[in-house]
């Protein structure tokens, strides 16, 4: 075995510019008293991941409403299926008026969205995102869903970039590095982070462990790992031990703030 001295190795290794801010998990401090308090420090110009898949289940609807009411602007939104529920009813119970990410474009607060599904098949009526895009008020960055979630996962997992076969030979591939592995062409895709993640879970314990239910996981667990600050809306906050250790969907280390919904909230 050869010996390696630091001197020869350092030539390929820059100093680590990693974020060394130690993030505490002192349980009591994670619980916010209200949705408005939980989002109060989000500044204009922030990038914000919004969890769920699209539709009511798994969407942090109360946090979104609080963010809208905060009135800040120039936001970049990162979502998945975005802004189509209001015009199509997608993923919402029939008896409720859908609420979706289009609200930030209706209000003019958001100027950009990165997502996989920003418009429905029909254009009558126009969705808020398409309206803003047509009027030149919003940049819409459309990413294949698998690439989008993998980029978010990568940001949380310390992977700055990876190769994927998805999107090769399409407009998605424009300007991207191509590389063949085992005779198949792939694209280089980069990690996607954000200043904040607003996510939704069924339960949190006071330490910040989260439990999800059914298909409400979707983008929530990965976004929790990828944003600098993760804020979660839950139906219920329970004590330590109130979540089965086998069913923790997001580790407490990733969670910064928890807000509990009011009992009997009519919104899903």
């Amino acid at each position, binding site marked *: 075995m050869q010996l390696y001295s630091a001197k020869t190795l350092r030539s390929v290794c820059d100093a680590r510019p990693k974020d060394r801010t130690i993030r505490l998990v002192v349980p009591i401090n994670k619980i916010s008293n209200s949705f408005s308090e939980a989002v109060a420090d989000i500044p204009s110009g922030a990038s914000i991941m919004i969890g769920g*898949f*699209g*539709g*009511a*289940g*798994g969407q942090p609807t109360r946090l979104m409403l609080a963010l809208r009411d905060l009135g800040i602007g120039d936001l970049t939104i990162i979502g*998945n*299926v975005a802004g*189509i*529920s209001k015009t*199509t*009813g*997608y*993923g*919402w*119970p*029939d*008896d409720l008026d859908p609420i979706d990410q289009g609200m930030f474009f209706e209000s003019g607060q958001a100027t950009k969205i990165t997502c*996989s*599904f*920003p*418009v*429905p*098949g029909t*254009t009558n009526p126009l969705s808020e995102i*398409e309206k803003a*895009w047509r009027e030149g008020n919003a940049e*819409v960055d*459309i*990413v*294949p*869903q*698998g*690439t989008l*979630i*993998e980029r978010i*996962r990568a940001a949380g997992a310390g992977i700055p970039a990876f190769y*994927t*076969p*998805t*999107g*090769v*030979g*399409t*407009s*998605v591939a424009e300007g991207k590095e191509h590389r063949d592995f085992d005779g198949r062409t792939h694209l280089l895709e980069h990690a996607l982070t954000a200043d904040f993640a607003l996510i939704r879970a*069924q339960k949190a314990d006071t330490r910040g462990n989260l439990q*999800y*239910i*059914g*298909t*409400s*996981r*979707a*983008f*929530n*667990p*990965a976004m929790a790992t990828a944003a600098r600050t993760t804020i979660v809306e839950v139906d219920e906050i329970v004590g330590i031990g109130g979540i089965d250790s086998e069913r923790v*969907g997001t580790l407490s280390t990733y969670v910064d703030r928890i807000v509990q919904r009011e009992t009997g909230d009519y919104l*899903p």
Partner: protein
Amino acid sequence: MSSKPEITGNEPAPRLNRAAIAKRAARDLVDGSTVNLGIGIPAMCADFLPDGVELLYHAENGILGFKELSAPGEGDPNLMDAGGKFPKLVPGMAFFDSVESFSLIRGGHIDVTVLGALQVSRSGDLANWVVPKRGIGSIGGAMDLAANAKKVVIAMEHNAHGDIAKIVEECTFPLTAPGCVDEIITDIAVIEIDRENGLMVLREVAPGWTFDDVQARTEARLEAADKIDQMA
């Protein structure tokens, strides 16, 4: 832009309806395979499975093993499919997040996906996410599915409104994935794509239709199979 094939005279016989397209597509689905069905005609395949065939349905938002939907007005927002509908909770289902859902797709673990299309080219290129004149569209899971499922089947109407060809020599719409389609099932034909040789082989026609009838409504050059069967 899409060209209009020259069609002389009336249609030789009625076209299949959407349910019949789905039924024909369902006939090729192999018992026990893991399947992802797109919205529209593809989703209808689930209603027409042959006896004894059971499929494991995957939805991008994180379910494997769902079956029928809840009645309208019922259902749980936390148990949605990728089309925004609410399936019933059945035993054997599995829930997972989007990372795992797309690992399954991108990793090549989906046996078959049935999708709709705007255009399919002779070499199997698929365009199904954006209409150029609108300028904005939704990719969703389509690019991952088209590029990575083991088998890609297109179930669609053969022509767009105004008899516009959707099966073309080369796609003029932005692609979802190049060279990905294995088979096309329409209201007048079943076409297999021999991608290695860049050939479209007509295998079946709707009752009362001939090779020439189908070719007249298809921009791409078709080859005739040794034996052309009747769709059923």
